[in-house]
């Protein structure tokens, strides 16, 4: 833009040899100075909390009383003994599998549908992408109203069409609450994953398809033999993002169901929140649950990275 008038001096390379050393070391100091804000954030708000959560998970630490000394491994025992621990693990895993499978299938479908560019396709693409501009909390609040049995359009439409006689309870039973949430998540994220998959599809050369066509491959054969295998890196990226995100699900359930009905939709993060701030007020046990989640996710990430690397070539 408004670059100030700095005519390039030709003698850049002709810097005196003798000054090189001190210049370089002073430049190291300057480099450190520029990196200092990053360092401060990193130490204060990342490394200290990581160490703190380890320490908290090993300590008796009530919400309002603070650190009352080490009590390892009590918190871990208490964490696994929590009434909702295993149900929350089971629910989070179920939700993760269901969401990942459906979201990837839908996103891939959308990506194939709008693959080549043309005017109508880019319009449709934008329509798919708009929901991903919303925050997850906003989207959840929106669907909370959409799912309202009385005034929500889905319920009204079902009643108007005579499909059901009574107001439908989209969030009222464990099963319907799960599926209603999955629907919201697919709506919110499908466009974004479609975009990631489009990037992958773009990288597949047209020649390969052409060759398959000449060989007489049908649509389905082309899809299973060429598109899916060549799209593997993109599909893997989407899977990682979706699995990690779903394992840490919170906003959508906190807003749509608050973990209900009957605690059937309590996710692990919701459990951490409940143990720390609702009722039990035990930060030590909450930290222990956090550590278990952290460990599981780090393992998962390492495994996925390994799988990605190994599978690549």
């Amino acid at each position: 833009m408004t670059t100030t008038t700095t005519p390039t001096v030709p003698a850049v390379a002709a810097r005196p040899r003798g000054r090189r050393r001190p210049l370089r070391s002073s430049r190291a100091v300057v480099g450190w100075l520029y990196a200092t804000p990053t360092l401060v954030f990193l130490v204060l708000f990342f490394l200290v909390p990581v160490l703190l959560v380890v320490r908290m998970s090993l300590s008796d630490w009530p919400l309002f009383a603070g650190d009352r000394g080490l009590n390892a491994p009590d918190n871990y025992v208490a964490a696994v003994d929590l009434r909702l621990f295993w149900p929350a693990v089971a629910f989070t895993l179920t939700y993760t599998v269901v969401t990942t499978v459906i979201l990837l299938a839908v996103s891939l479908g959308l990506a194939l549908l709008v693959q080549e560019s043309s005017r109508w396709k880019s319009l449709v693409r934008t329509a798919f992408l708009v929901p991903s501009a919303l925050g997850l909390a906003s989207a959840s609040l929106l669907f909370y109203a959409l799912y309202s049995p009385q005034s929500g359009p889905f319920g009204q439409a079902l009643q108007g069409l005579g499909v059901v006689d009574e107001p439908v309870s989209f969030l009222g039973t464990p099963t319907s609450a799960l599926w209603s949430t999955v629907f919201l998540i697919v709506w919110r994220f499908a466009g974004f994953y479609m975009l990631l998959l489009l990037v992958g599809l773009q990288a597949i050369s047209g020649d390969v398809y052409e060759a398959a066509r000449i060989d007489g491959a049908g649509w389905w054969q082309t899809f299973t033999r060429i598109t899916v295998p060549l799209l593997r890196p993109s599909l893997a990226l989407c899977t990682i993002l979706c699995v990690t995100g779903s394992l840490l699900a919170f906003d959508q359930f906190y807003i749509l169901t608050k973990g209900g009905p009957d605690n059937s939709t309590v996710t692990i993060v919701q459990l951490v929140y409940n143990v720390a701030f609702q009722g039990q007020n035990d930060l030590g046990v909450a930290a222990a649950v956090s550590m278990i989640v952290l460990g599981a996710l780090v393992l998962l990430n390492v495994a996925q990275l390994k799988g990605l690397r190994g599978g690549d070539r």
Partner: protein
Amino acid sequence: MATTTRPARTPAAAGGSRDRGPSVGSLLARTPAVVLAGGLAVVFLFPLVWAAVASVSPQGGTAQSVGWGFANYVTLANYQAGIWQYLLNSVIVSGLTVVLTLTTSLLGGYAFAMFRFPGKDLLFLLTLAILMVPYATLLIPLYVLLNALGLSNSLVGLALVLTMFQLPFATFMMRISFESVPRELEESALVDGCGTFGALRRVLLPAVKPGLITVGLFAFLAAWNDFITPLILISDSGKVPLPLAVANMRQQVMGIVDYGATEAGVVVLALPCVVLFLLLQRHYVRGFMSGALKG
């Protein structure tokens, strides 16, 4: 991989089959796809349109019947501390987060791309490691830490935490931006007597502007939309940002949910995001389609 025959005849065949003319056959074949895509587009847009319409319509779930108009927005505006307070909270947190993220990642990106110093790689790796540690598990210790620092219940504390979560993406992005700037640009500025800071401000800043815009946009969206961080870190109900206020409002009214006001809240929350997205989607989508493949 799965293809068996080598496509020796491809070029000729490709030339022949790629007729662009809208033959009747291809139009017919395309119609179902167009209808399907159009239908799906309506499905994706419907919730947003419905929210906008419902927010100004008389339904809403409360007993008093109001006509078409902004009654739902009035209800929203009058909720507890008032929507202006919550909006202000959101603007302060988002603004601070954007400024802090931009400053930190600009200086950090400059250091990581253009300087050599001991510990550089470790520091950069640790910044990326923030991604490995799940967000939610850090919030419990951060709650304790901010209490200890006297930053509990404060918008500044909230912005500091949100900035930390932005750092992996922001630092990575700014490092790449600086690395794509020709080295000579900085060197010539230095030779002309600028200090490194002068070179950064006068010569490099314009060159990394696209990166800064991306980082700023992501930081804004993340801070504006964040829900769980203020839920845990802010206990004073007057200090919460807008998403939390709207969610709280929904729960407060004696078991009767005011869907109209909720809808109005959703519209206020979503509007800046959707507008920003539509304005910047060109950059955003192109950035993804061209650059994101590396990796």
